[in-house]
């Protein structure tokens, strides 16, 4: 295994789904169910059984819009306000209208959701305004339940192939993708009438405080490949300056997690054990108050559970130490941290792109269509803000159903064979160098520069320096990086995605000359929010080989926001008592 081979295979399909985490399996499943005769391929860099953000399951839904507890309009309003008004509401509203059906469908797959004594969903409140949190008692089984459905509909699953570039036709329509086997370096050219990108967050953009390249908040396999592929295919990417930054257990770098602990009475506290934020829901405004507290004499910040009853703590542990990031318990044990006695030290994560929690993603409309005909995106990498796991499932379903309809109407687009040849040369270049810089060093340097110059607080001059320094890293990557086996080649390709994402992050951040979304785009030499000039999207595209940004108006609201509701998320800090 891992020796570099030289084969090329070609397959044709109707719909190609890239990424087998959360959105991808649902997109492929829905496409196949809608047209069982169609060829639908699910391509995954790892193994669909255990890939993506929910490899070990999830503790619950963070954004369930369930009749009787909240309405699609209320949720759309909440997300619009949380995003400081920069939100196309149509995809959010569509999500909110469909997600209840998806919950019921997942329930039918065997994924159970918490119900009360009357058999109704037991929804809890964590957000600022409404109630949307729904625990999943057997959340560790999500991937297994999903995989059973994929097998049932006889989906074509291709594991351990990493897509590296999309193919487009002469008319600009998507034509397929090129992929490389992560263990043999063999090529696979997939011709497809429609392609759905579900490749997850750009989680290896910043460097975690621990310095360990893979100690990221996101599943470390999510290197931003999808963002890079969309960019090179000419798609527009939205609001990349709205970084993801999350409050996490320090060093462990996983969620603590407020959505689990909050409903049980746990909360985020300063070194005095006092609350300092009104609401633990992850928003940029909340993260800014969190960061302010870290910088103040009242830092560091902790998760406080030590006031809770033994049985409550036992219940919290049974969730946190079993699903999503189950090694949390092991981490605490090694340090002798006990929730009964100790507050848990928290910190801010490295930066990344992820619409799952913020709003940085490939631009999509309410049908999950990108700006490239035939190309769709869903999940953490698509621009529907704060969409979390249920958004990945729901928007994945939307994408799958629309894409299979699109594929029925068109033939395969003709791509230029020279594009495949050029990609082969790019991909294999590091294998042809006898010596050079290994990918882990290229990656470390790029991500260290991201931390030094690009993570908030953002400063114009720092970001300008960054563009020069990252260009040097790109030069090293393109002319001097060397790999010894197919596994290292995968890391080399990921390093290229990381450098692409870093350059996009800098370009988008420099473009928006204001501060917005709390800490996510805290630009200290443009400290004020400027609605007159910037209540709009930033759309980034590849123009003449470089990232170029333009403004795009926010679509007229479908759900109006009253004047006195607009700033609800800007009043996060608990006011001092007299």
């Amino acid at each position: 295994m891992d020796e570099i081979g030289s084969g090329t295979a070609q397959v044709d399909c109707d719909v190609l789904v890239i990424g087998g985490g959360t959105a991808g399996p649902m997109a492929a499943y829905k496409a196949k169910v809608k047209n069982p005769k169609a060829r639908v391929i699910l391509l995954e860099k790892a193994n669909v059984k255990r890939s993506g953000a929910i490899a070990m399951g999830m503790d619950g839904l963070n954004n369930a819009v369930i009749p009787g507890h909240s309405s699609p309009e209320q949720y759309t309003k909440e997300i619009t306000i949380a995003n400081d008004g920069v939100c196309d509401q149509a995809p959010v509203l569509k999500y909110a209208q469909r997600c209840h059906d998806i919950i019921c469908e997942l329930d039918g797959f065997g994924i159970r959701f918490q119900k009360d004594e009357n058999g109704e969903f037991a929804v809890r409140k964590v957000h600022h305004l409404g109630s949307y949190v729904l625990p999943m008692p057997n959340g560790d089984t999500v991937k297994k339940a999903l995989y059973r459905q994929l097998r049932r509909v006889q989906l074509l699953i291709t594991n351990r192939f990493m897509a590296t570039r999309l193919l487009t036709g002469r008319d600009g329509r998507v034509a397929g993708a090129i992929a490389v086997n992560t263990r043999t370096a063999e090529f696979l050219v997939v011709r497809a009438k429609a392609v759905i990108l579900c490749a997850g967050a750009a989680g290896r953009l910043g460097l975690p405080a621990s310095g360990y390249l893979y100690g990221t908040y996101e599943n470390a396999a999510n290197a931003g490949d999808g963002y890079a592929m969309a960019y090179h295919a000419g798609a527009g990417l939205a609001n990349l300056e709205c970084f993801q930054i999350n409050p996490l257990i320090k060093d462990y770098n996983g969620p603590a997690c407020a959505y689990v602990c909050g409903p049980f009475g746990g909360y985020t506290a300063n070194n005095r054990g006092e609350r300092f934020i009104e609401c633990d829901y992850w928003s940029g405004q909340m993260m800014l108050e969190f960061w302010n507290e870290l910088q103040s004499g009242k830092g560091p910040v902790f998760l406080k559970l030590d006031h809770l009853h033994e049985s409550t703590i036992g219940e919290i542990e049974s969730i946190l130490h079993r699903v999503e990031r189950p090694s949390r318990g092991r981490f605490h044990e090694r340090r002798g941290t006990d929730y009964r006695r100790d507050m848990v030290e928290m910190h801010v994560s490295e930066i990344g792109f992820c619409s799952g929690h913020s709003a940085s993603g490939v631009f999509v409309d309410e049908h999950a269509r990108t700006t490239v005909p035939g190309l769709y995106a869903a999940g953490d990498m698509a621009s529907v803000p704060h969409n979390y796991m249920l958004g990945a499932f729901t928007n994945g379903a939307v994408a799958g159903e629309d894409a299979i309809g699109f594929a029925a109407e068109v033939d395969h687009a003709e791509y230029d064979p020279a594009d495949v040849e050029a990609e082969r040369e790019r991909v294999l270049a590091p294998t042809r160098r006898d010596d050079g810089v290994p990918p882990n060093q290229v990656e470390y340097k790029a991500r260290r520069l991201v931390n030094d110059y690009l993570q908030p607080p953002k400063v114009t001059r720092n970001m300008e320096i960054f563009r020069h320094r990252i260009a040097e890293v790109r030069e090293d990557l393109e002319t001097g990086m060397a790999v010894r086996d197919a596994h290292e080649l995968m890391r080399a390709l990921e390093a290229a995605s990381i450098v692409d994402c870093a350059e996009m992050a800098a370009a988008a951040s420099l473009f928006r000359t204001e501060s917005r979304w709390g800490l996510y785009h805290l630009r200290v030499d443009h400290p004020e929010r400027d609605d007159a000039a910037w209540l709009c999207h930033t759309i980034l595209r590849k123009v003449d080989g470089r990232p170029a940004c333009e403004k795009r108006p926010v679509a007229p609201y479908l759900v109006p926001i009253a004047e006195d509701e607009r700033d609800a998320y800007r009043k996060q800090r608990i006011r001092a008592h007299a």
Partner: protein
Amino acid sequence: MPIANTPTSVPVVVDEEKCIADRGCTVCVDVCPLDVLRISELTGKAYMKYDECWYCMPCEADCPTGAVTVDIPYLLR
């Protein structure tokens, strides 16, 4: 520009007594999202070849004989 091999202490440990990779099992290698486990040609047992771990635990949870243990990477402990 020669390349050095810098040692690291890896977080995934395999109990070779319990590991049945030499009888054809490849479960831990198959499920790892980062693809960092391999079967040793020398011992026939699974081991962590690349120190690129997200300490996520599918390898441990899915191992049929309980041979795999995921520890927290040293830099994070």
